[in-house]
């Protein structure tokens, strides 16, 4: 009891106990093991590169864990930061998706064929040992989870043990997807943020695929259309970008961003006559939505005094 208290694991109930009563869970197969997920045993401390390589190879990218060391590993910290795990995924032109903290979500993803990279504390609250592992399977009846972890391929753990360690890592979980594909539990905002991450990292083609798929899946999400327009614009496909921004405007005619970026796409096509109205609209809406939306009108005036 004393030991349990020291781990900081004595408070709060564990989610796995409620799994059976969850309706969301009923659609799950009793037992899943994604035994095709490749395994790379970690070198000292380097569970970050190893687990990333497992997911990347699962997505068809022949990436060696050693080549990821210089992308995510910090020698003096003897580990890898979560943000850098996401960044390294982007650099591979793959989409990293961070999930909610539900045990049921984890199982649903595995059931849908997505191995899940989890962050764990194998130590204690006062003496943490941070660790990344890949969940590749589970058994509902036996209440067991299957992981590629450290130097062990297909490690079997009880739900309880696993959840204690995963809870120690704040239930952090990510999956990796080819841009344009979705996790089982994709939420529009989270997916669009992940797509924007690809855009930000300069992976414009990958981002375009992700946004494009998002516009089909959630056609009412204005951000998806603006995002699509933005990466097309960045690839100098100004006419396509114009179409996407126009679609965004249909969804919300009061969006300064859509007017503003549309004006830019038109100016890039030397269509200053058509750019006049959206540039002015953006400038008007900038009063409420931010100074940054004045730039199109300023550029228009400079080009056409």
């Amino acid at each position, binding site marked *: 009891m004393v030991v349990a208290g020291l781990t900081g694991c004595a408070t709060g109930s564990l989610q796995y106990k409620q799994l059976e009563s969850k309706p969301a869970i009923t659609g799950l197969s009793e037992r899943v093991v994604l035994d095709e997920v490749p395994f790379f045993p970690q070198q000292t401390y380097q569970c970050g590169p190893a687990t990333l390589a497992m997911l990347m190879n699962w997505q068809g990218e022949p990436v060696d864990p050693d080549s990821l060391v210089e992308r995510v590993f*910090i020698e003096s910290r003897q580990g890898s930061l*979560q943000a850098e795990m996401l960044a390294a995924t982007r650099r591979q032109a793959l989409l990293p998706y961070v999930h909610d903290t539900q045990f049921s979500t984890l199982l649903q993803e595995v059931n849908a064929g997505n191995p899940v990279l989890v962050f764990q504390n194998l130590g204690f609250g006062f003496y943490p040992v941070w660790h990344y592992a890949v969940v590749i399977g589970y058994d509902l009846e036996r209440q067991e989870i299957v992981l590629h972890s450290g130097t062990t391929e297909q490690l079997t753990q009880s739900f309880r043990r696993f959840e204690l360690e995963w809870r120690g890592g704040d239930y952090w979980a990510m999956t990796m997807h080819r841009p344009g594909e979705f996790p089982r539990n994709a939420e529009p905002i989270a997916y669009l943020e992940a797509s924007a991450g690809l855009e930000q*990292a300069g992976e414009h083609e990958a981002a375009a695929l992700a946004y494009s798929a998002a516009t089909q899946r959630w056609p009412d999400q204005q951000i998806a259309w603006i995002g699509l327009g933005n990466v097309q614009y960045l690839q100098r496909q100004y006419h396509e970008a114009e179409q996407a921004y126009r679609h965004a405007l249909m969804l919300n005619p009061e969006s300064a961003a859509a007017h503003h970026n549309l004006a830019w796409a038109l*100016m890039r096509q030397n269509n200053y006559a058509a750019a006049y109205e959206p540039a002015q609209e953006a400038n008007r809406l900038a009063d409420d939505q*931010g100074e940054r939306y004045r730039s199109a009108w300023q550029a228009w005036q400079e080009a056409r005094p």
Partner: protein
Amino acid sequence: MKQSRVSRWITVVSLVFTLLATGLTAQTAVAGIIGTETLMQEQSGTLSRDDLQSLIARGDVQEKLIDYGISPEQAAERVAALTDTELQHLAIYMDDEPAGGNVTLILLIILLILLLR
């Protein structure tokens, strides 16, 4: 003191190079359009006050990576793939952020302890 000034210069110079190399300047200043991440931050109310702030955060994180022993070139490449949100978080909390990467020896000891609980 001298050391930190040197490393700051290295950071600034390599930051400028990265910005040029990755075309980030094209995205923020030249291209004109407002990026999607900015827009999403705006809508969720988490947007930093100006572009300069995120540039500074990028520089801070890069410098910290160099302090951790990452080469300037690699540090530049690594920060280029981080989002503004991640950069602003790391700029403040990087030293406190947990870094995953256990040791087998410690693991064995801990496994033993865990078995006892």
